[in-house]
């Protein structure tokens, strides 16, 4: 764009070397929808009902109307089983499916570490090297699509609510001030 091009945002902007992010690079659509993400989206895990439900929570994204229901079967200190259901986009569905695969067997502290690590990933922060995100790492591309971060987090904030609603969540003494936005 030249400065006298009537389409230039303004003569000053054009001269300043200002460029929109989307003009700098091809958008990494395939980076958002990686193969592992599409696989989880097409074949979501953890849809089967649990024999016993000890805690559950309902998550809703008012921006797009997506809904997630997380149900948990809990042992004394850890998660024995997870069911994730709901209606959401590919990112939300894949994230919920990965959750259902990763969370069973974890104790409450591990669950919260995983949630924090996933948040870091989505914010583009460094993930603690000892933390194994499993297939969740495949959602790393979401960091470049800020409006989709909420889609990826919805099953996880719902999980957080479910755990906190139960004594096991308090007993583990995991203290976090208020519920943070993803």
């Amino acid at each position, binding site marked *: 764009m030249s400065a006298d091009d009537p*389409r230039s*945002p303004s003569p000053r902007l054009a001269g300043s070397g200002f460029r929109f992010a989307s003009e700098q690079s091809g*958008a990494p*659509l395939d980076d958002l929808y990686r193969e592992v993400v599409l696989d989880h989206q097409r074949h979501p895990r953890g849809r089967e009902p649990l024999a016993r439900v000890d805690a559950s929570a309902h998550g809703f994204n008012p921006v*797009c109307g997506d809904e997630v229901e997380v149900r948990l079967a809990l042992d004394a200190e850890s998660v024995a089983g997870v069911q994730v259901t709901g209606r959401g986009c590919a990112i939300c569905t894949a994230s919920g499916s990965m959750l259902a695969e990763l969370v069973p067997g974890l104790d409450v502290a591990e669950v919260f570490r995983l949630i924090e690590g996933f948040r870091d990933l989505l914010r583009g922060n460094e993930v603690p090297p000892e933390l194994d995100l499993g297939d969740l790492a495949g959602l790393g591309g979401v960091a470049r699509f800020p409006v989709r971060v909420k889609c990826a987090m919805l099953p996880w904030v719902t999980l957080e609510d479910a755990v906190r609603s139960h004594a096991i969540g308090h007993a583990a003494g995991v203290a976090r001030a208020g519920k943070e936005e993803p």
Partner: protein
Amino acid sequence: MNADLGVEIRGQGSGERGDAGSLDARALRGRFPALGRLINGHRLVYLDNAATTHKPLAVLDAIERHYRLSNANVHRGVHTLAEEATAAYETCRHRVARFVGAADARQVVITRNATEALNLVARGWGARLGPGDEVVTTEMEHHSNLVPWIMLARERGVTLRHVPVTDDGELDLAAFARLLSARTRVVAVTAMSNVLGTINPVPEIAEMARRVGAVVVVDGAQSVPHLPVDFATLGADFLAFSAHKAYGPTGVGFLVGRLERLEEVEPVWGGGEMIREVHLDRATWNGLPHRLEAGTPNIAGAAAFPSALDLFEELGLGPVRVHEQGLVAYALDRLSSLGFLRVHGPLDPARRGGLVSFTDPDIHPHDQAQVLDNLGVAVRAGHHCAQPLMRRLGETATVRASFGVYSDHDDVDALVDGLMAARRYFGS
């Protein structure tokens, strides 16, 4: 316009003039700088005009001209700049009155947007209501024409009633007739649905409402920029709309009202400009419309909006409507023939404005919109601030493509290509 300011006006009235009835969308795009952008390497195909339209150079120039040359506050100075700013601001009011067919400029209250205009009616006129009174609105309203009435119901014990939407996406007028009674004090309805595109028969609705003595509030946010309007014959008591959906700046909207109804509106905001005389413990109000406009308004925005109205006057709302109806007919045709979409709203293009909402049962609207964006096609995916209507449709979200004067058949083709690409991408 603004000739009285003695300011030379660049880029106005110039450019291509479409032949009557055939609007040259492609040539018009040249006047909208943002439409010249490349998005992800593709020409921007902007199909989110129901959310907000782009702004032509004439409007951008007018905003800049205001700040560069005439910047001053309105209605409170005798110096030259203050006079110019006041004249520009009041010119906006006069031009809007002329545009919507209101005989008197005092009928036009300048607000921040349609939402504020609707809230002003619900609070300011709604202050007359109480328990036993009923407000009738509809299942297809934008939250802006639902929530202010919900707030009124909470505060004043008013009862809310809702006109249902038929399976064809129209208002059920027989049900509406049954809802009306002597208790009905307000009928608040959108002239055009921002989700279904449905054009509601406002004159007929207004006539029915007036027979029971109800005040008629029309949400014109979607209709005013796309359909010819004549406030004098519409039958409405109040009409709300936003400048930013009509090629104008954000932060400027309008409440047009019958003078006798506006006289009944209690001020909702107190402060400068809306008063006549203030003592420490009491005050008297200014006359209309200033009584309802407290504080410093968006002067630059108001000063620039007439440049958007110039565009409508140049093109004519009739030809604009013909153009957009042609586009929606083409879009309905192409989208339905894809065979995999659920297309919402009336099938007859004559009964709908220039927008179309749809869902692919296999692909979430967010994902469709993401693929479309990758191809430079901007659409809206979500509930469109109409959650009750979404529930009625049995959807959590839809994709919406909405047209403007600069949209054309190529844009519809790009949308359809993108939707097919999304099918391939997600392998369904």
